[in-house]
């Protein structure tokens, strides 16, 4: 078997597919995708609802349809794919150790590696939610896999904790399957999901959303039988005597996604504590030369369209990277200013041509706000926005003319009314 590649892409979901296509089109001759599942497409395969591709294709596709647009593109190119292959570790010298049933444990070497491993769901355990540990408790994505891929319904009386997009989608999905979704609970005073999902998945089905509420106890010995829900104060602490009890046989958790960077850590790639993804330049190259990251392993996106956009960028720069020597960095830092949770990229290399698109999330919901990018006292960009929320990613474009002006660092901040 072939052991050396120009570019190896880890993960064959939306990010990996777009990155591989883009790298190939930039001239990388040998491109390999390593995918642990038995087909390409990643989590899109279990997302049978529509709404994918509105930005990119100007039409509403299902998850598998969106994936197939890319898989079809991939097939017209000489890109290799290894399925049912799990990467066990990587080294900074771009050696990958992987495992599958056919080859056993084997090593591969690449000139550049694109990280596209996606993310995982935060579990019930990580939240220290009190109570028993019975059957019937799932993260929303696991339930989605059981319902949409395996064809089995976990239960018929459901409570959902967290108003993340997968939780909202599953509220509708379970309802369509005849289950009664009694409540969606959100510990924050606002939803972390997209507005359109709140309307289409909850409001349209009369499913109540309880803001500033959380589960304080799970009940049931063998199988979950109910939950106790409490209202929370500004510090997210349960308020005594606000308990509501729900009988249920299923509890779904949609309480956040975490980029899966265990492999990145094995290659000593520095991560951002804010995104939990790699720290990157606008090229999506990490701080370890020749390692690029894109999609949900880098930052958790709201829409797959943005994942594809980011992956095309990463793939293209990885394609460039293997062709020519780095001309040296002239990097400045991008800082999180007031009310900003994170900004990607975290670094801008002034030696790279072209505009820089900044992706960021606010720390809280703000109205009638101003988004500003500052370098010291100088304002580089200023933009007004009616409303911003942590659940909706914001973008801003810095032209080359502006980035040339940056000395040392810039700061992105949002000001507005609460």
């Amino acid at each position, binding site marked *: 078997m072939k052991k050396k590649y120009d570019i190896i892409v880890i993960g064959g979901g939306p990010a990996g597919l777009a990155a591989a296509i883009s790298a190939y089109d930039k001239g990388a001759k040998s491109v390999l995708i390593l995918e642990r599942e038995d087909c390409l497409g990643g989590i899109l395969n279990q997302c049978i609802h529509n709404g994918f591709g509105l930005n990119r294709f100007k039409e509403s596709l299902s998850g598998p349809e969106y994936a197939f647009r890319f898989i079809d593109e991939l097939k017209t190119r000489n890109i290799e794919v290894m399925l049912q292959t799990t990467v066990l570790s990587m080294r900074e010298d771009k050696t990958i150790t992987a495992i*599958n*049933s056919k080859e056993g444990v084997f090593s591969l070497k690449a000139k550049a590696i694109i990280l596209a491993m996606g993310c995982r769901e935060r579990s019930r355990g990580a939240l220290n939610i009190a109570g*028993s540990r019975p059957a*019937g408790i799932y*993260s929303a994505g696991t339930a989605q896999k059981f319902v949409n891929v395996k064809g089995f319904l*976990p239960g018929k009386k459901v409570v959902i904790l967290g108003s993340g997009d997968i939780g909202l989608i599953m509220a509708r999905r379970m309802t369509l399957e005849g289950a009664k979704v009694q409540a969606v609970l959100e510990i924050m005073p606002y939803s972390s999901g997209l507005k359109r999902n709140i309307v289409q998945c909850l409001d349209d089905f009369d499913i109540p959303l309880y803001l500033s509420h959380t589960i304080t106890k799970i009940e049931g010995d063998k199988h979950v039988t109910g939950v106790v829900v409490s209202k929370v104060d500004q510090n997210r602490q349960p308020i005594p005597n606000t308990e509501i009890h729900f009988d249920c046989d299923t509890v779904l958790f949609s309480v956040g996604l975490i980029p899966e960077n265990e492999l990145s850590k094995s290659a000593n790639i520095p991560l951002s504590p804010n995104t939990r993804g790699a720290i990157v330049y606008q090229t999506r190259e990490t701080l370890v030369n020749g390692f690029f990251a894109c999609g949900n392993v880098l930052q958790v996106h709201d829409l797959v369209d943005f994942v594809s956009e980011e992956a095309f960028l990463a793939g293209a720069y990885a394609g460039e990277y293997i062709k020519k020597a780095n001309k040296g960095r002239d990097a400045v830092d991008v800082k999180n200013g007031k009310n900003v949770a994170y900004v990607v990229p975290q670094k801008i290399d002034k030696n790279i041509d072209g505009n820089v698109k900044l992706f960021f999330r606010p720390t809280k919901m703000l109205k009638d706000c101003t988004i500003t990018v500052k370098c010291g006292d100088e304002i580089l960009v200023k933009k007004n926005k009616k409303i911003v929320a942590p659940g909706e990613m914001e973008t801003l474009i810095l032209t080359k003319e502006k980035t040339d002006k940056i000395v040392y660092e810039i700061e992105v901040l949002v000001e507005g009314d609460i």
Partner: protein
Amino acid sequence: MFDVLVIGGGVIGGTILRELTKYKLSICLLEKENDVCMGQSKANSGIVHAGFDAVPNTLKAKFNVIGNKMMKGYTKELGVKYKNNGALVVAFSQEELAVLEKLKARGKANGVNGLEIISASKLKRLEPNVSNQAVGALYAKTSGIVCPYELTIASIGNAMDNGATLITDFEVADIVKRENKFIVKSAFGKEIEGKIIINCAGLGSGKIASLVGDSDIEVKARKGEYILIDRESGGFISHTLFFVPTKAGKGILATQTVDSNLLFGPTAEETEKEDIDTSAKGMSFVIEKVNTILEKPPLFNTITSFAGARAFSNRNDFIIEESKNTKGVIHCAGIESPGLTSAPAIAKFVVEELVSKQTELVKNKKFNGKRESESCFKNLSIKKKNKIIKKDSSYGKIVCRCEQITEGEILHAIRTNPPAKNIDAIKRRTRSGMGRCQGGFCQPYIADLIAKEQNIALTEVTKKGKGSEILLKVTK
């Protein structure tokens, strides 16, 4: 009819079962749950205690010290992970330093070697992340760690390989004595006969004792809540850290586990027998205490929290004795901490000293105490891994990504003694689902494997036995 019926598939029942198979006896283990190791043996700290804590001349002191010495060889034979990581009892005041002297003297009286009182600076060298407020510690070099369910499952599996029978879902409801045998009846009307009964029923041992007329044995439950931290932070501490015991109790401990997680806990709260719920109060207590004994503990890497119930008796000591009222019955009741450490020593004593009084013990020459290690695939060399994959390609397929567990290991757990019949049973044998995603990704795959191997529908697959079915019905 069996020669011996062991009631209860925890670590005590399991090690006794294995000890019995060294002799020519027909043996049966009765377990009320769908899998073995479902009580206190699945949710405790996993400490192989040195033996300085137990009051001298108690059964606890005696079996703790012998068990500690046996554990290394015992676990090696069974292919069970064991680490002699040492323990530190951390003092925060001059008064507590004085208590350390008492503990050391007590340990010496119990026959514990390797006890040393160390300075704050030496403590900091051994454990750089210990609290800066610590003023010294008792260092117990013989203390170790073991995985309690791995040890229990391996003991029972090895006993079964040597001929013992396991019957699960058999909750003992009644015991009837006939001339030279017992008829043990289950809650569902099944009956099993045996000549000797060994009561190792944990929280239920008081009830079993009362069924044979020994109402003086009272067993209550004490709940302990724990917080488990991702392997990624497993190197934060390497020893087992204890607080100095006070009148208010032992406090909690902080330890590395043999699987490189960190474990913080337990609380100690007397409860109803079946209550193993975690509570907000319990978890905040653990968090507060961990923040006291460690500098900036990595609680951000919490994977899960859980609770276990420990049985304790009205005698403030282990109860290991023949029934006072019914000949042929042996009780092992109230085996709280250091029960795990003591288990191999208790098993040897029960069989050699107590069972021998009831029946003649003839060596079983076919006994093979060795057992292949579970869940060791990821630690093998690449060469060895490839040899196995070549023979069985299912070892080339990773099912649990967080713990890197292969399909081959999961099938092995379903097919070997004691067979894993549900999702949690597979988790305890292979660690699949024990990682940071808590089974989010692998559970659908594992459910498929169970359904296929047992030839049942996915709706019949359970998390932990009947009543815990994971799926309700086929979609529309």
